[in-house]
């Protein structure tokens, strides 16, 4: 509990609905992440994942609660928290270099042109776009555009990266390559990352922790699944890991059935102490944030864990 780099404390988001009623997307949401951790959020559309990310980014303000990053409550956006947008959001009138340099010169206002350019170039090289610096976004493929988005986010050397389904608009091959790149870069730079995804395999490949959210409105964070796969996992032999299918089935079961029924079936769910799920053969061990003694969840009650 001492290692909370990011702590979301009891946030809620409500919108004024029709005829004076308010719609609650989620409330009393607690969530924490350690420094250098890669976390993925999985949930169906409408559960407020993007709202959580926007609140973390400072683009949106919570109706209640606070977000604490590195010991300080956040208010508004910050250069410490870089966002990779789903739609890449490149400025089409700027070149690749121009887009990255815009971010660099926003962070270091006093740098001269040459220094900004050199710094931006480093990150363009890092994402493998050397040679395309002077192209405009319209001349790039979808994957290359998202690479520029990643370079732009990394170039300001943020404390954390926020990604809203960054690869969902890409074809499968490009997505795989970019996942490798993001994983490599995050490991190399020790980046803390928060990613929204719909892709279970993407979450398993990238994440250290996977947050499962129930359906909205009134969505809750149901479980935090710890990824049992080794940190140096590779894409090619990922599915051969003995716990891979147990993990995958657990997540898919959640998405298919338990995301709908969780709230009704678990009336004593404590949003401040979301159960942490450790997948281990043959059963499933569950513990609540490590504070309380671990309970054992016997196989059979959880349909996914027959492996």
């Amino acid at each position: 509990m001492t290692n909370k780099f990011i702590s979301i404390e009891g946030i809620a988001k409500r919108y004024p609905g029709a005829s004076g009623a308010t719609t609650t997307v989620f409330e009393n949401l607690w969530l924490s992440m350690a420094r250098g951790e890669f976390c993925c959020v999985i949930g169906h559309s409408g559960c407020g994942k993007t709202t959580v990310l926007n609140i973390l980014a400072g683009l949106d303000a919570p109706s209640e609660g606070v977000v604490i990053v590195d010991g300080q409550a956040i208010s508004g956006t910050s250069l410490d928290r870089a966002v990779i947008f789903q739609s890449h959001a490149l400025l089409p009138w700027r070149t690749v270099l121009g887009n990255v340099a815009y971010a660099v010169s926003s962070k270091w206002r006093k740098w001269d042109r040459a220094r900004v350019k050199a710094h931006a170039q480093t990150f363009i090289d890092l994402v493998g776009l050397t040679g395309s610096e002077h192209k405009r976004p319209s001349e790039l493929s979808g994957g290359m555009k998202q690479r520029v988005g990643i370079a732009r986010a990394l170039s300001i050397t943020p404390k954390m990266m926020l990604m809203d389904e960054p690869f969902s608009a890409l074809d499968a091959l490009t997505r795989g390559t970019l996942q490798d790149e993001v994983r490599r870069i995050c490991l190399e730079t020790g980046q803390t990352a928060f990613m929204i995804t719909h892709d279970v395999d993407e979450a398993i490949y990238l994440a250290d922790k996977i947050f499962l959210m129930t359906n909205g409105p009134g969505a809750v964070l149901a479980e935090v699944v710890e990824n049992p796969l080794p940190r140096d996992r590779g894409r090619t032999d990922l599915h051969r890991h003995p716990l891979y299918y147990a993990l995958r089935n657990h997540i898919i079961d959640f998405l298919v059935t338990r995301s709908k029924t969780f709230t009704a079936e678990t009336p004593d769910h404590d949003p401040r102490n979301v159960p942490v799920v450790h997948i281990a053969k043959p059963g499933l061990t569950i513990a609540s944030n490590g504070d309380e003694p671990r309970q054992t969840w016997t196989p059979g009650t959880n349909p996914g864990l027959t492996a």
Partner: protein
Amino acid sequence: MTTSSLRLRAGLVSIALLAAFLGVWHLATRSTGTVATMSPEYAKLMGLTATQGKSAMPGPLDVGAKLWEHLRRPFYDNGPNDKGLGIQLGYSIARVGMGYLLAVLVAIPLGFLIGMSPLLSKALDPFIQVLKPISPLAWMPLALYTIKDSSISAIFVIFICSIWPMLLNTVFGVASVRKEWINVARTLEVGTLRRAFTVILPAAAPTILTGMRISIGIAWLVIVAAEMLVGGTGIGYFVWNEWNNLSITNVIIAILLIGVVGMLLDQILARFTRMVTFPE
């Protein structure tokens, strides 16, 4: 079929149409020979219209000859009612330029402000909606009474007619900048002023330039009418003066030149629009 051959064929059709038009014009206005016998002195007094059945409408050859005469000496000045066409057009272009520039200076910053502020947008909307459809010439008496200078009044009329398309397009362009671009600027902690110049202005520029292009077209339409009213100088005054002289040839030449200058102004703005347009 390649595009170059399409362009060639279109050019040929254009030339054929022009030739047909000039031909019909020539045939319709030519002399039909002597229609009445009269004493030579009386005939001289009556002119070709009565004696040879010639139409009062000049033919293309008359207009061409007169045009050549004008083009050879565009800048002569023989007093208030006899100036070269170059001078007259120069006056008109200068008035349009002044009024238009003033309108740009007002409309674009104001449009930015309105576009960025939903409050101002709602508050000013009724005024804009009422002022926009007023014919610019309806302002003329008010302008003459308050400004007491006919030339400045004409500039004011140009200002008032070219401000609306620019203002509305700027408001629309600024208000509909993609949210994701604004969010990029926000996550990079870009200040309001820098955001306005580095994100909103380039994003809204194509829409703003389209408004400016509509405005220059309207301004050029209005200047002719305004100069007919205020008199003195300008291509509009020239048209009216030549009408009073019953010189249809000069009126036709002026019409032709008004069209050419209007086209050039539009092309200049079109070029600027292309410069700021970005492919997505």
